[in-house]
């Protein structure tokens, strides 16, 4: 398994519970106990997911406050989102344009068929 940053980020994002934890943290910081509640998870279970998220640089945990709140670090997510975005933009736009070209081709084919039909009628 490659250890480059994007792979770590995507691997961390591949799990639905971890995405839900991120979505919760997008609303503001939370303690491990608060994070465990809606997911019906044990504290060690949540801690395990948090460790993966921290290793990927997606979540930071404060060492100062007593309750050690977790918060979202958006820079890595932004990198991943940008990367996917570039690729998607290239191909979304290409396929949209291909669709336009195809519709033009269909129109021209129909027109040619109609013209042929007319020529045929004239011959008769």
């Amino acid at each position, binding site marked *: 398994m490659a250890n480059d940053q994007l792979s770590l980020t995507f691997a961390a994002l591949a799990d639905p519970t971890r995405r839900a934890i991120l979505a919760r943290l997008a609303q503001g910081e939370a303690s491990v106990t608060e994070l465990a509640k809606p997911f019906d998870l044990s504290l060690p279970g949540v801690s395990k997911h948090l460790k993966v998220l921290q290793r990927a640089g997606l979540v930071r945990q404060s060492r100062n406050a007593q309750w050690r709140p977790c918060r979202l670090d958006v820079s890595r997510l932004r990198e991943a989102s940008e990367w996917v975005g570039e690729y998607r933009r290239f191909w979304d736009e290409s*396929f949209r344009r291909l669709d336009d070209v195809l519709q033009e081709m269909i129109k021209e084919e129909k027109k040619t068929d109609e013209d042929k039909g007319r020529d045929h009628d004239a011959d008769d």
Partner: protein
Amino acid sequence: MKTKGEITMPTTEYVIEPGKYEIVSTVVLDAPRELVFKAYTDPALFAKWWGPSRYENRIEKFDTRPGGSWRVVQVGADGSEHGFHGVNHDVVVNERICQTFEYEGVPGHVALQTATFEDLGNKTRITAQIVFQSVMDRDGMVASGMRSGADESMERLAELLASQS
């Protein structure tokens, strides 16, 4: 539901798995596959759709026979040029095109891309698979070759999370 005369945008699905060397994109277009194949293999038609519209495509080589080579240069409004080239390996009429792909901005990193056309009556499903030589190549090629400089906002981030959940 699609009604007659309604303009619908094709939706492309992307599968990008962590640690893998490939990206798979799938889209269904509203045209018979003979036309799709033609749009992929006729240089004048290909130039009309490949890549973002802010670039003009200059086709330098476009031999779609197996073993034939291709080179396309994307020219920006400011005159900037981005070259791409490769060799067609396997071309099966109306069915698939398998070719190598190299972005000249990052020479030496060759990818293998295969487009498969599936006949769905008057529609065609295109499956485009691109396999890179490494995860780094996969992640690096797009970052350097297709960067538009757009700054992603928090909304995009929220969108990403929402779409993944």
